[in-house]
C-alpha cells in the first residue's frame, strides 16, 4: 500500500514537473498571444501605428509624386520634403504615443518568450556590435543614412504586431524603434526591449 502511495506521489511530481517545464518553454516558440487583455493592447497599438501611417500618407500626397523610376536627385528631394512635412506635423509627438506602457509590456513579453535565455544574450551581443552607435534614439530623431539598418529577425517579425508598409521595427542596441521607412524619422521607441 505504502509502495503504491510513494509511486503515485512520484508520478504526480513527475507529471507536475513536466507540465511546468512545458509551460515555461516558449510555448510554440513565439506563438502570437492574442488572449484577452493582450488582444486589446495589440489592437490599440496597431491602431496608433495605423494613425501615424495614414497621416503620413496624407502628407506625402501633398508632395509631387515620386516616380517608380526616379533619379538620385528626385529621391533626395522627395525624402527631405517628406521629412520636413512629417516633422512639422509632429511637433507634439512624445515617447509612448505608440509604445504605451501596456504595449511595451506586451512586446517585451513577446520578445522574452521568443528569445529565451541564451538566445536573447546572443541577439543582444549581435546588436551591440552593429554600426548603430550614431543613431539618436529619440522621438523625431533621424535615423542616419550612414548607420546600419540591422535586419529584423524574421521569426520575431512573425510574432510581433504587424506594421503598415510605411513603418518598420528596428533594433538599436536593446531599444526597439518604429522608424518611417522612407523619411527615416524615429516615430517612437521603447527602451530595454531586450532585457
Amino acid at each position: 500500500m505504502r509502495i503504491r502511495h510513494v509511486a503515485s506521489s512520484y508520478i504526480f511530481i513527475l507529471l507536475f514537473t513536466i507540465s511546468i517545464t512545458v509551460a515555461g518553454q516558449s510555448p510554440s516558440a513565439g506563438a502570437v498571444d492574442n488572449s484577452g487583455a493582450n488582444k486589446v493592447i495589440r489592437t490599440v497599438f496597431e491602431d496608433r501605428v495605423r494613425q501615424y501611417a495614414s497621416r503620413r500618407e496624407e502628407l506625402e500626397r501633398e508632395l509631387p509624386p515620386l516616380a517608380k523610376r526616379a533619379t538620385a536627385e528626385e529621391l533626395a528631394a522627395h525624402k527631405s520634403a517628406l521629412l520636413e512635412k512629417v516633422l512639422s506635423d509632429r511637433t507634439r509627438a512624445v515617447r509612448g504615443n505608440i509604445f504605451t506602457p501596456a504595449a511595451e509590456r506586451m512586446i517585451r513579453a513577446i520578445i522574452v518568450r521568443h528569445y529565451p535565455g541564451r538566445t536573447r544574450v546572443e541577439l543582444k551581443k549581435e546588436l551591440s556590435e552593429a554600426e548603430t552607435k550614431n543613431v539618436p534614439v529619440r522621438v523625431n530623431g533621424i535615423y542616419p543614412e550612414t548607420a546600419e539598418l540591422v535586419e529584423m529577425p524574421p521569426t520575431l517579425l512573425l510574432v510581433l504586431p504587424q506594421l503598415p508598409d510605411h513603418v518598420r521595427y528596428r533594433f538599436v542596441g536593446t531599444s526597439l524603434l518604429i522608424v518611417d521607412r522612407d523619411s527615416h524619422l524615429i516615430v517612437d521607441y521603447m527602451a530595454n526591449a531586450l532585457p
Partner: protein
Amino acid sequence: MRRVHLVLFVLYFTLSVTPAQFSSIAQSLSVKATAPTKARIPEITLPKREGSLRVVVFGDAGSGNKVQYELGRVMEEYRQSFGFDLALLTGDNILGKKSPLDMKNKFELPYKSLLDSGVKFYASLGNHDTAIERFYAPFNMDGEEYYRFERDGVSFYALNSNYLDKKQLDWLVDQLEKDKNAWRIAFFHHPPFSSGGTHGSNKEVRAILHPLFVKYGIDVAFSGHDHVYERVKPQDGITYFIAGAGGGIRRGDLRKGSRITAAGFDSNLSFILLEFVGDEMHFQAISLARTRVDSGVIKRRD
C-alpha cells in the same frame, strides 16, 4: 647542397600550407603580377551557347573606392568577351552617404560602361541600403523592396532580407505557387549559409527561407553580406553562393575547414558569371586579377 636546401624549403612550404592558404597565396601573387591592369583576354570557361541567358552577380560593392572602379572595368572586359546583359546585385549597393553625388560615384560611374552597353541591373537591398532606393531607376526595382522578374524561362526573386515580414513571405509563397518557369533563382543580402568569419550563416533567415526554397523549388540562391566568395555545398539540393566581394574584401575571412564550403575565395574582389543552358546553370567566379577562382555546372532541381 643549395639544391637540397631548395627541395627542403619547397617540401616544408608544401606541407605547412593548407590547400586554401596555398590558393590564397597564389591568388595574391597573381594579383601583384597583374596589378598594372593591363587588359588581357579573359579566360571564359562557360559554354557561350547561342541565345543563352548570361548574367553577372556581385554585391557589397557600393563603396566608391578605387577597387570598385577597377572591378567595374574588369567586368566590362568580361562583358565584351562573354556578353552578359543582366546584373544581379546582392545588396549594400550604396554604402555610407547616399546623396545624388554618392549615387553617381558609388554606382553610376563605376559601372558606366556596363550601363551604357545596356546591362540591366536588378538590386536587392542590404543592411547599408535605404528602402527609398527601391525607386532608383538604375536598380530596376520599380518601387518594390521585393519583386520577381523573368528572362528566357528563368524566374528571379529579389528579396529584402532586412525585413522578411509576413507580407513579404505571403507574397513569395503566392508567386512561387504560380510560377510556371522551371528555373527559380533567389537573390538577397543575408546568407542563410556562409562560412564567413565576420557574419556567417544567418540562422534566422535560414529558418524562414530555406524550407520555403526547398518546398517551392528554388534552385540557386545568391547572397552577400560576407565580403568573400563562397559556393556552399548543396543544402537539400539548393546551391547557395556568397557574392559579397564586389567592393571590398575581408582577406582570410572564410573559416578554414568549414564543412559547408564547396569552394571559397577570400583574397581578392570577385564576381560571378552565369549562363543558363537548358537544365544547366554554368558558373564561373572571377577575381579582380582576372583569374578563375571557381567554375562548374549546376543541374536544375526536379
